């Protein structure tokens, strides 16, 4: 299914191969943007981005682009992989356009994504993992009411050393109670 969501400042929609652009590629090659993503260990090209987009079937796995209403520009993505048996979702976000950092973009747009996952897709729990030194992301998960469910100690390489990964989750009931 094709996804189309809207917030005050952004619209979100399913990505297709035409969204594999030099702009998108520039994010994948920016060390600061990629700092907390596992994809930073891979080599990226327009073809690899097209393959990544095509790898989401829009039935149980979604790659949803975030677009600024004012400029029309593609500024980031959500990846959401649903388990239809357990009604759980593993999600992650990338805001590749630095001009949209520190502007509440994640809090605003992830709310729409959660509404979609819980209401349209019938999911019951959404999860997200964060590097312990990704302070901005930790702040956003907490501010949005997610629970810190656990910590994977010294789980990933980060910078010159290793760091923990914090596991967050929010249930459908918890999200609906906040709305």
């Amino acid at each position, binding site marked *: 299914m094709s996804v189309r969501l809207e917030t005050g400042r952004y619209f979100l929609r399913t990505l297709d191969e035409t969204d594999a652009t030099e702009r998108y590629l520039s994010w994948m090659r920016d060390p600061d943007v990629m700092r907390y993503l596992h994809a930073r260990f891979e080599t990226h090209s327009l073809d690899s981005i097209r393959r990544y987009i095509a790898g989401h079937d829009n039935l149980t796995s979604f790659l949803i682009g975030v677009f600024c209403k004012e400029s029309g520009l593609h500024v980031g993505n959500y990846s959401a992989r649903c388990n239809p048996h357990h009604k759980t979702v593993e999600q992650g976000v990338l805001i590749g356009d630095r001009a949209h950092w520190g502007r*509440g973009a*994640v809090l605003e747009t992830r709310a729409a994504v959660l509404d979609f996952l819980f209401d349209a897709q019938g999911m019951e729990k959404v999860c997200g993992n964060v590097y312990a030194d990704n*302070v*901005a992301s*930790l*702040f956003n998960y*907490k*501010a949005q009411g997610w629970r*810190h469910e656990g*910590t994977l100690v010294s789980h990933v390489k980060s910078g010159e050393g290793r760091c923990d990964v914090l596991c967050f989750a929010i249930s459908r009931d918890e999200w609906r109670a906040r709305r």
Partner: protein
Amino acid sequence: MASALGLELRDVGSDATPESLNAWDSLGHMRISAQIEEKIGRPLTGEEVLALASVQDVAAHLA
């Protein structure tokens, strides 16, 4: 706190929280965390970052 959030000292009350200060957003939290780390000489754990929910929490960390 005030310098990390780009505010005047008088704008940061002793009971301030992210909910009460617009400037205390994700980037503000990064700057607060960075200043604490500089003061205490070590990185904060993820749990410690999460626990910084008020001016009092920040003060307790620096005590």
